């Protein structure tokens, strides 16, 4: 019997494309599987990623932006950066894209049950946090988690992703949403300042809490310092690493940090786990 | 394939030629050939470039790798370059590229360089005819065919 090849993507069709920012280099793609069976097999948790294939161009790993609770389709938010993402941006509704996944470990939604979640995101890295927030705030799951705090920073208001859903969350009283931009801007009525000082201002309690941090390296670094000040332990800080990937299944050998593969053992690591690994990421 | 059918296929074979023409002289020359209704073979596809100095040798090699049978590069006559010296730089580049490719076994007939000014519509047509003749003499390009 031939083994099923994990390198072969399943075919999906683009259902919708949403422009996410004013510069128009970030779009959210919604895919429906061509074969319903494949959708059933695509069993994922928030924080996992998948390899998107544009046939003839290549593959790239992208975090899943939709939540498992959003049925029927999956969503990816893609920034136009490299060759494959540029090709993706040129596609239209109805085009075929290959998907391999779900890959990686994802946020530990089971272990986090019963805890307060402090979700801290910066810029375009918010996609898997969108997934997590939707998952945790879904009516089936909301009772499993304590307080839900979302702190989301951007450079300017034009870069804020997922405006509709953010507004929805703001209206709810069981999620504390804090939006911030780096500098004052006309028409912006929410917070102004970098993410780290805003976290300090919000000052979430480390008691029974987990901090989930995802963003550009400088934001992660400054936020970590603030979280340490707030007495979060290394086990309580979860990070999602970024590394160059090709195969996504731990075979091609490029995304290792020490003996761990980011694509297989990650991308989510706790600060405590990372402390044991060489600083090569 | 029998010999007979081979003969037949060469007879019917129409070379595909990619022509890189400089915006200021040769492209205008080609245009003039067009508006003057001068006939020339329809084998060329034109890529307009600002100057022959803009042509990276990659363009030429990639064209061959993509299966184009021949290349035509044409710019302003020496001394007429819109950018003063672009065509001189290009001339050196092509001289070396052509010699190197010839050494490595790529037929020099595939690589055609020339100068055509904006006023030389007639010359452009003749150059295209000559190019097609050159490329036809060496047959289809199978240099970079991949095995799979």
């Amino acid at each position, binding site marked *: 019997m031939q083994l099923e090849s*994990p*390198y*072969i993507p399943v075919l999906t069709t683009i259902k919708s494309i949403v422009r996410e920012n004013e510069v128009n280099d970030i779009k959210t793609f919604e895919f429906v599987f061509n074969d319903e069976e494949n959708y059933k097999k695509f069993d994922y948790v928030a924080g996992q990623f998948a390899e998107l294939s544009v046939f003839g161009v*290549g593959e790239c790993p992208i975090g899943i932006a939709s939540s498992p609770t959003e049925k029927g389709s999956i969503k990816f938010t893609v920034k136009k950066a490299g060759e494959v993402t540029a090709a993706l941006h040129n596609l239209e509704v109805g085009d075929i894209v290959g998907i391999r996944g779900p890959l990686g470990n994802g946020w530990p939604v089971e272990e986090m049950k019963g805890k307060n979640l402090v979700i801290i995101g910066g810029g375009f890295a918010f996609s898997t946090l969108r997934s997590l927030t939707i998952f945790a705030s879904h009516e089936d799951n909301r009772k499993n988690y304590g307080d839900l705090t979302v702190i989301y920073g951007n450079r300017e208001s034009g870069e804020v992703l997922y405006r509709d859903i953010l507004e929805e969350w703001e209206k709810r009283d069981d999620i504390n949403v804090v939006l911030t931009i780096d500098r004052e801007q006309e028409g912006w009525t929410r917070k102004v300042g970098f993410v780290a000082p805003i976290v300090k201002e919000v000052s979430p309690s480390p008691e029974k809490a987990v901090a989930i941090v995802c963003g550009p390296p400088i934001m992660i670094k400054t936020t970590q310092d603030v979280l340490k000040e707030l007495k979060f332990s290394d086990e309580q800080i979860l990070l999602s690493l970024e590394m160059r990937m090709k195969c996504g299944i*731990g075979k091609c*050998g490029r995304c290792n940090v020490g003996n761990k593969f980011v694509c297989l053992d990650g991308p989510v690591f706790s600060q405590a786990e990372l402390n044991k690994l060489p600083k090569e990421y | 394939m029998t010999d007979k059918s081979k003969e037949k296929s060469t007879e019917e074979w129409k070379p595909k030629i990619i022509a890189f023409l400089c915006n200021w002289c040769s492209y205008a020359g080609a245009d003039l050939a067009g508006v003057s209704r001068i006939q020339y073979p329809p084998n060329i596809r034109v890529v307009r470039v600002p100057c022959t100095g803009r042509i990276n040798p990659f363009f030429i090699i990639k064209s061959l790798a993509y299966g184009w049978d021949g290349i035509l590069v044409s710019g302003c006559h020496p001394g007429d370059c819109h950018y003063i010296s672009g065509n001189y730089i290009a001339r050196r580049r092509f001289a070396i590229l052509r010699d190197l490719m010839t050494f490595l076994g790529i037929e020099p007939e595939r690589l055609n360089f020339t100068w055509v000014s904006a006023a030389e519509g007639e010359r452009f047509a003749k150059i295209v005819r000559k190019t097609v003749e050159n490329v036809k003499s060496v047959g289809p390009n199978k240099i970079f065919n991949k095995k799979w």
Partner: protein
Amino acid sequence: MMQKMISKEKISDLIKELQKEFKVFGPVKEEGVVLFKEITDAKEICLDYSNSKIPAKSVLFPMIDTLFSYKKEGKGVKIIENPPYEKTVIFGIRPCDSMVFSLFKNFFSFGKYKDPLVLNRLKNITIIGMGCLEPRTTCFCTSVNGGPFNKESVDVLITEFKDNYYLESITDKGEALIKKIKSLTDADKGDLAKIEKLQKDIESAIPVIEGLDGIYTKLDGLFDHPMWKMESQGCIGCGSCTYLCPTCHCFDVLDENKQDGSGRRIRIWDTCQFPLFTLETSGHNPRTTKLPRVRQRIFHKFNYYPKNYNIIGCVGCGRCIINCPVSSDIRNIFISVENISSKTEG
């Protein structure tokens, strides 16, 4: 275990017999370089060699390996899977190189995802190893759990003795294979004892490298040690050590297209020695200089491998020593590691 023999002149008969049922890969000399290639003409095979330039991993893990093909039609895409792998014999591989086959089996089936290409090939490959009568001075197989007559990952082991080749079946697969071959005769019992002695003599003559023992724990504390600056300053950053290494298996994935809309996704050998290996689209690169890249190669083989798969990622063939353009010697790194760790202990 079954022992048979064949005279040297008749070896092409044996190859021909194998070819009836199998695709046969063996050492072939091309322009002075020995490679493992499919044998089409039994006379091509070159058994008088010390070791091949490109390791026999190229059979299991080719330089260009098709993952799948596809055909674009309008907006649709059709995916075409690879044809099944044919039954194959690898003939005359050195025992050090054949160790790689069990290593690859380990690696490519480890964890949640199995690599079907390598594993399907492994299932269909029978390995006929050839004992190494003349280990090179750069060989250190005995220091990494191998040996010139190591039986661990071959199905049949051949030992050259006088005018004959002696074949010894190691696995059931190997025994089944030898049983079928008509050109073999029963082994000369008198020679067998002599062969065993010969094997032992050759094996014990290979120098043992100090410091390889337990290198994995020794490396643990040396990640930020200044020794890597010394070891990497001469490196020019080419990929010859990794491409010619039998155990290196990192790859890159690419799409190739034809103009008619068909194409294939392939993987090609890639190496941690290139800066692009880890360069992210954002421009960030965790390993920007030669130092971390050289360190990665050593750590991957001697620290991460034992940690993850409980096996050393090196077979001691010495190819990286022979082929390094700047003559850097991996054995010197072992010595440095040993010296540093003994100093810190003392």
